[in-house]
């Protein structure tokens, strides 16, 4: 696939609102500032809402959506550009994928298709501005284009127009070509969606080409599986034949570390996605669980009972240079690095009874308890380094309902907000690389499945439907 042309980036009033600086600069400062500014207010709001039992209607909004009106984007279905009979199926895949990518992105508000004019454009010449930039659609942006198979090649042309700027509307123009096929159509839609999100979402890379690794028992054993971020293209990665758990993909996407039951117990295992086979990792003795990659991919943290109580150990990515980071009574497990700094690790410890979230420096010093009560597990560090997502049963004990929900905590202030409210046991949140999404496991549908949502708890989507699926881990890019 090649890029035909990318018009120069143009500021719009919407972009100016969300992007204070140059477009190349990541928007994290915005995210951070908005979040910092509003978090206390929203925590307070949340408390009020809980107290008045109105929480079922008003979710706490965090992160990207705070105070920012989303761009209204119209995305009419792409039109066929040739008469090839394959076009119909490929167009459906492309249009569905593009719509879903943009819909769950959290950076735009998609204008309902029922407001669209009857004549939708497939080329720039067919764009009728008044039909889009005024009510009922009242769109600010228009993404359109065409798809067709011709001469044995699948070609997609797509544009993004600022329809309120009729003089110089084009923000983006892309062309993709590939061998015709469903996977190619889906990939083209992902790439075009990422281009749009990159431009309208404050300069953060989109996630439409990311992967999610997870555990599934649908083969009869718990094995490591992978899928596209939207739940498509699910496929089995490992064939361990016993129990494989806790997949964690390396930052460069080349390896998956996980824990598996072997003849000698639970061992850290390493699967090379490049070689499509297991690669060696030393047998350490004891119960070895929950590997986690440092942000630079050079180190692993994991839990090991090789020296007694399950404790956090750090090693090189090869398993060499093993160091014990925690000591003392009670199991320590589920470490995760601050991938931004590589200088801190969050983990779970049962040293005081029920498991709680702790943080420490990567050398084991300055261990601090983050959660004050209940049963808190499965920490996952946000890409911006400022937040922890985790699973929490805040009130635990006899007579308590015991619902486990996903929470978000600002590490500096220890203020938190609850992100899931829909019942069931929700666990194992994992951030998307853009920090806008999370994937998590939940049994809210009656069986254990994977769901994704925006980091403010909205746009909840079920991703898996077959077997039991758990412990999702979102790729780093």
């Amino acid at each position, binding site marked *: 696939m090649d890029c035909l042309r990318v018009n120069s980036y143009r500021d719009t009033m919407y972009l100016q609102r969300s992007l204070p600086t140059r477009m190349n600069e990541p928007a994290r400062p915005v995210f951070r500032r908005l979040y910092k500014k509003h978090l206390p207010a929203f925590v307070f709001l949340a408390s009020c809402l809980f107290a008045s039992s109105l929480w079922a209607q008003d979710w706490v909004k965090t992160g990207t959506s705070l105070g920012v009106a989303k761009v209204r984007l119209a995305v009419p279905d792409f039109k066929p550009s040739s008469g090839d009979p394959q076009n119909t199926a490929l167009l459906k895949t492309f249009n569905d994928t593009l719509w879903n990518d943009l819909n769950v992105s959290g950076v735009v508000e998609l204008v309902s298709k029922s407001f669209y004019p009857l004549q939708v454009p497939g080329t720039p010449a067919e764009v009728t501005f008044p039909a889009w930039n005024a009510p009922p659609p009242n769109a600010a942006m228009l993404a359109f284009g065409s798809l067709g198979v011709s001469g044995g090649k699948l070609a997609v042309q797509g544009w993004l127009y600022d329809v309120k700027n009729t003089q110089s509307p084009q923000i983006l123009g892309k062309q993709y070509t590939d061998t015709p096929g469903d996977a190619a159509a889906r990939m083209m839609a992902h790439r075009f969606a990422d281009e749009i999100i990159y431009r309208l979402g404050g300069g953060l890379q989109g996630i439409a080409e990311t992967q999610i690794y997870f555990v599934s028992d649908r083969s009869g054993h718990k094995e490591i599986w992978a899928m596209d971020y939207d739940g498509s293209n699910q496929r089995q990665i490992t064939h361990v034949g016993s129990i494989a758990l806790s997949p964690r993909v390396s930052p460069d996407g080349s390896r998956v570390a996980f824990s598996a039951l072997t003849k000698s117990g639970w061992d850290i295992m390493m699967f090379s996605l490049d070689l499509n086979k297991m690669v060696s990792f030393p047998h350490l003795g004891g119960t070895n669980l929950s590997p986690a990659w440092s942000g630079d991919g050079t180190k692993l943290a994991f839990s090991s009972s090789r020296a007694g109580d399950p404790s956090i150990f750090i090693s090189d990515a090869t398993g060499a240079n093993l160091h014990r980071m925690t000591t003392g009574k009670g199991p320590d497990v589920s470490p995760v690095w601050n991938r931004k700094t590589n200088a801190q690790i969050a983990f779970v410890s049962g040293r005081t009874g029920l498991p709680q979230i702790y943080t420490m420096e990567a050398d084991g010093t300055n261990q601090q308890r983050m959660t004050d009560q209940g049963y808190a597990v499965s920490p996952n560090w946000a890409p911006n380094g400022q937040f922890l997502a985790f*699973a929490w049963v805040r009130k635990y004990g006899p007579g308590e309902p015991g619902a486990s929900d996903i929470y978000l905590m600002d590490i500096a202030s220890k203020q938190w907000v609850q992100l899931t409210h829909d019942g069931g046991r929700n666990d194992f949140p994992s951030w998307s690389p853009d920090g806008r999404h999370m994937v998590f496991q939940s049994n809210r549908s009656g069986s254990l499945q994977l769901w994704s949502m925006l980091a403010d708890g909205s746009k909840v989507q079920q991703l898996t439907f077959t077997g039991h699926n758990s412990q999702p881990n979102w790729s780093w890019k």
Partner: protein
Amino acid sequence: MKQTNVKWYALAVVLAAVLTLGGCAKKATPPPPPPPPPAAAPTASISVNPATIQGGQSASLTWQTSNATDVSIDGIGAVQPNGSQSVSPTDSTTYHLTAKGAGGTQEATARLTVTQPPPPPPPPTPNITDEDLFNQQIKDKGDIYFDYDKADIRGDQQSTIQADVAFFNAHPNINFTVEGHCDERGSTEYNLALGDSRASSVKNALTAAGISASRIKTISYGKEKPFCTESNEACWQQNRRGHFVYQK
């Protein structure tokens, strides 16, 4: 002259008598046969060889009779005067031979004793394996149960620990694995770590009581292999345990 006449007269009488008697001979009843000589009494004997068998084996039954016309053995029926036959009764049997003849009746008996086969066909009485003993006395019975989210051995489990120690002390050749299990609540990873702590607690209690650590392996199953799959406290308690498994 007178004497001659008498002679002739006598002769005629005799002649007449002879002729008369001769003429009447065919009509006369034959004389009764001489009574047979007194019949000999029958003889009979019967034997079984061997006289003792185990159930399922057979023995040879042999008999001889003489002067008998009607020979039978109880339970077998009419038989030849002399013969032999293989028998394999399931219970001890007395074979009763009856030989009837003109001279009377003669009886004879033979006793075949059937012993039951020794109960353990291969006599493994001293061969109860360590694994059998383990399965009888430790498997499930010796398991140690835990409180929620706890890995320390609670007071009501101490007697079980002591019984386990006694057993493993008495059977020093038995090596075994302690599996740590947890109930379904909470996270997969934390429960695996907790299960590891539970297995270690049991191991530590045994080694503290003198069981060699080299005999004990530990493994955690967390909540991966529950004994009971319902979502209630009774079931959860079943799943919070240290479970003993024999090491082959």
